[in-house]
């Protein structure tokens, strides 16, 4: 009896310990996500297309497609100081591919496909006894400049540390963008023997970020940044679109770029104003395998504002990105596909065809695909108005223009076009918005005579019906 008494006592004490300890160790599972559907009609944008819209044919044909995207985010939170963050993506174009494995597939009859994409997998933890937060792993990568340099859906592997210091937050990050280990003979054009295998850790592209953001007052913030991009990956690949301007940064060049930035935002009475200036300098060592040793000297600037007018909000923005022989360095995918990993649409305003925008998923093409405009630079601006027609109905209308920053051979003008667009969104339920929108671009003389047989190409348009659900 003595033994069983002891056992019972220990068991009771143990049960008590577990019962009281459980809440402290309970893992919190957090799920969030996004589902988007869109059906589109356009005379230039076709299902699954990405990159710069090629405005060269007559383009009087209308193409239509329907696509869907689901993004699922799962966070395993041990406590407020430690969590694992993951994000996945499932994309499909209706009618495209089934019973085959790969991203963006499974939309054809039968559906079955393995098309789960990994977007984020990273650890998020606070360093004990400090205010330093660390995010380590594959995560979203964004600059502090509306994604003109890098961002707009970019994900990369690296470490990002941040810490508040009074009213200022400091961030320090390092990301490995590329580490190539092999090349294909067909694209080996830097003098290296064809088919050679590189050692890992040599043909790399790395990015260092240092950001400071200060909440100077309740209504004013300003920030400063230093970014360092080092590209030792001078080997061309089939994925590279290549800049139009020769001897500029972008694959296949070996370069170092230092980026200095200033940004600010302030509330001035009823208006909110923000803007930034980015200056770049550095050295382009080689271009396409040839020694170059040219100096990089470029910049980008943006100014935007919004103000309550009548029942809604009026918006205005202006943007300049340098081009030509001193083209602005932005970050693009250079090894897997010619995807843009930056976006100037956030700085330009709400557009549907001129630049990348949140409506684009796997079909992702725009007249200006990257902030550097393929080495040509951008002069752009927009005005817009947004209003709640009812508590559930939101209407938007925008006008925007864009031109290349530097004159191009073979083009009558720098002016690329003017976009007019409108959007009507209805909040059906909490989190679910359905809507329609459309955009029409009046092409500028940049495209004059570039249509079939020297004709002028037709003006691009797009109309979309969409549903977006966030939870």
């Amino acid at each position, binding site marked *: 009896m003595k033994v069983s008494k002891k056992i*019972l006592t220990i068991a009771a004490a143990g049960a*008590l310990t577990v019962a009281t300890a459980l809440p402290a160790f309970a893992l919190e599972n957090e799920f*969030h996500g996004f589902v988007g559907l869109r059906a589109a009609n356009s005379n230039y944008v076709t299902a699954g297309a990405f990159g710069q819209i090629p405005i060269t044919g007559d383009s009087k044909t209308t193409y239509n497609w329907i696509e869907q995207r689901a993004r699922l985010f799962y966070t395993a939170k041990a406590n*407020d100081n430690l969590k694992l963050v993951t994000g996945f993506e499932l994309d499909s174009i209706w009618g495209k591919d089934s019973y085959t494995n790969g991203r963006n597939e499974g939309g054809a009859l039968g559906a079955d496909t393995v098309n789960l994409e990994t977007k984020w997998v990273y650890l998020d933890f606070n360093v004990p006894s400090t205010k330093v937060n660390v995010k380590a792993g594959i995560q979203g990568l964004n600059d502090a400049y509306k994604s003109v340099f890098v961002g707009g859906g*970019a994900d990369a592997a690296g470490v990002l540390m941040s810490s508040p210091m009074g009213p200022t937050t400091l961030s320090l990050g390092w990301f490995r963008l590329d580490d190539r280990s092999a090349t294909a003979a067909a694209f080996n054009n830097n003098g290296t023997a064809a088919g050679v295998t590189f050692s890992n850790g040599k043909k790399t592209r790395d990015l260092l970020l240092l950001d400071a953001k200060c909440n100077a007052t309740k209504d004013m913030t300003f920030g400063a940044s230093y970014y360092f991009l080092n590209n030792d990956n001078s080997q061309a690949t089939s994925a590279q679109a290549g800049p139009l301007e020769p001897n500029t940064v972008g694959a296949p060049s070996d370069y170092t770029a230092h980026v200095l930035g200033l940004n600010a935002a302030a509330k001035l009475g009823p208006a909110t104003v923000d803007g930034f200036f980015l200056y770049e300098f550095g050295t382009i060592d080689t271009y396409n395998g040839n020694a170059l040793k040219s100096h990089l000297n470029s910049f980008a600037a943006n100014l935007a504002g919004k103000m309550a007018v009548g029942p809604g909000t009026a918006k205005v923005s202006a943007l300049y990105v340098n081009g030509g022989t001193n083209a602005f360095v932005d970050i693009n995918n250079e090894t897997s596909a010619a995807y843009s990993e930056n976006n100037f649409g956030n700085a330009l305003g709400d557009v549907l065809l001129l630049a990348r925008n*949140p409506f684009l998923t796997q079909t992702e093409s725009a007249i200006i695909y990257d902030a550097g405009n393929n080495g040509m630079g951008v002069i752009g601006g927009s005005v817009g108005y947004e209003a709640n027609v009812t508590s559930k109905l939101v209407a938007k209308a925008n006008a925007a223009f864009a031109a290349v920053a530097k004159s191009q051979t073979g083009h009558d003008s720098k002016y690329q076009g003017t976009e007019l667009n409108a959007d009507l969104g209805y909040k059906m339920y909490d*989190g679910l918005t359905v809507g329609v929108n459309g955009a029409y671009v009046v092409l500028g003389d940049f495209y004059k005579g570039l249509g079939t047989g020297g004709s002028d190409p037709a003006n691009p348009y797009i109309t979309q019906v969409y549903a977006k659900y*966030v939870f």
Partner: protein
Amino acid sequence: MKKIALLLTAAFLMSAVAPVYAQMTAEQKNQCLLESKNCANEVNSIGQKIKKLQKEIKKGKKVYSEEDLKKLNAKLKEAESLLNSMTEGGQ
């Protein structure tokens, strides 16, 4: 047996006290948003989470300390950033 009875009584009393404490604090501070505690019955969409955080921040220093408010603001920023990342375009 007396010992066992004593231990079980103590355990019962402690388990009875805990919810009362949680209820009392929940009236003023949202412990789930602030410390990720007592989240068992919380199922929020990202939109609801943002709205709740904004509501708690509005309570200000009457309910929360300056350190609590900083923490809530950081969580609001994180939730808004996640929402932006979810809906942003890109491959």
